[in-house]
């Protein structure tokens, strides 16, 4: 099993519902977030293009945060989800430095926190909170090993990219372009 997410940059309107849903679902402290919207404006006026992306932890196959963690607090569970055990985290910041996507932050309680792909929902068969609430249905989540899952299907038919592929982490959030 290999969970992945696809984000349709042509359908995303940048409403931030995914951000609020995550904060509510995961009890993220006020002012912090595990997912966020990036707005890229590119080109020369008047020929400008805009791209909106809902971003989060890439749950990389080759995850530097898991490798550099000195206590094993950062670890990988079934489906390739990268998680942090709060009681094992010492807050050294090594994983924050190691993430090319800056997806991790220091929780006010001291430990490091990040997107969990809503592991608690996913293992019951539900969608992650951000995917479930998206009003434009631009987020696709599923198992890449299952050729009929939403994410496999959409990656088969659409062009896509990943962020900073040169970082060599083999990220698992795909952006449909």
């Amino acid at each position: 099993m290999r969970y992945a997410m696809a984000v349709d940059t042509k359908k995303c309107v940048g409403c931030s519902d995914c951000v609020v849903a995550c904060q509510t679902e995961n009890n993220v402290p006020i002012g912090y977030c595990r997912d966020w919207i990036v707005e890229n404006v590119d080109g020369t006026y008047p020929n400008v293009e805009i791209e909106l992306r809902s971003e989060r932890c890439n749950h990389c196959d080759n995850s530097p945060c898991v490798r550099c963690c000195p206590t094993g607090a950062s670890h990988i569970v079934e489906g390739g989800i990268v998680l942090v055990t709060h009681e094992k985290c010492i807050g050294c910041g090594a994983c924050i430095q190691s993430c090319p996507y800056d997806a991790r932050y220091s929780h006010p309680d001291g430990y490091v926190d990040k997107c969990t792909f809503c592991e608690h929902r996913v293992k019951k068969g539900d969608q992650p909170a951000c995917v479930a609430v998206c009003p434009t249905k631009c987020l696709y989540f599923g198992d890449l090993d299952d050729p009929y899952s939403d994410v496999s299907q959409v990656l088969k038919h659409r062009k896509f990219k990943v962020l900073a592929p040169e970082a060599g982490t083999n990220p698992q959030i795909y952006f449909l372009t």
Partner: protein
Amino acid sequence: MREELFVSGRDIPNIDPYLNIWHWQIPIYLFLGGLAAGILFFAGLFTVMGKEKEMETTVKWATFLVPGVLILGLIALFLDLKHKLFFWQLYTTIRLESPMSWGAWVLMFITPLSIIWVAAYIKDIIPQWNWKFGYLNSFEKWVNSNRRPIAWVMMVFSLILGIYTGILLSAFNARPLWNNAILGPLFLISGMSTGVATTMWMSKNHTERKTLGKIDLVLIGIELFLITHMIMGFLAGPTVQLEAAGLFLGGDFTVSFWVFVIILGLVFPAILEIMELSGYKVPIAIPAILILMGGLVFRFIMVEAGQLTRYLY
């Protein structure tokens, strides 16, 4: 044409300004760790070579600084942790892929080792010292009769400690300035150089000073060579590393790097040491302090600048 390129990126006020999560504690520790490694390595080396008499400061007196230096470094590391009460989790596991795990275990080993090394020399400072317990006396005798094998162990662990201060940073692919293979050897050599400078400053013996001065000159030469190669490597690298080199070649850290690290921290003390070796009277404190200052500033610059270099945003 992409003359105007806007990348608005992200802006999360509670997260983005704090992603440079490492502040003064880390460069202070890297400096102290390198210093301790430098002193211990040469103490071990000259013990193994059988020069305890000729190089008394190196083998004996300078090592009295090490336990204090390491404990200060450990305090700095502890202050850096955000989830402090869980620090013991470091010692519930050994993770070979994590440089920080290596560092934690090496420190756990070398700090007591340096205390033992120093404690067995304490009667040379306080002759009437009494260990009170018989087993401590016999342990002291054992240490003093097995100095050479202990010195070998100490050399190996001080090399790991010294090189780890660099690898801690160079293992982070996501911070392109740090992510180069030369940083480990560079920090090791720089740490050794600060260690030798401290020992040289403490030494009262003319021949010992001269030997240390020569060693330090070689170390400074290697350091300049490694820094040149580090920058050459960046300039031949991908965009993110070109941007990293740009910080030192016209960017925000140009003046602090070239003036305080290269000129005042390496080239100028090297000139003073050459003058000293060729017979001029130079107060030894000046090159020593300059080298120590250069090493400290170098670590501050590397830690600060490295956290500015990123892939995204």
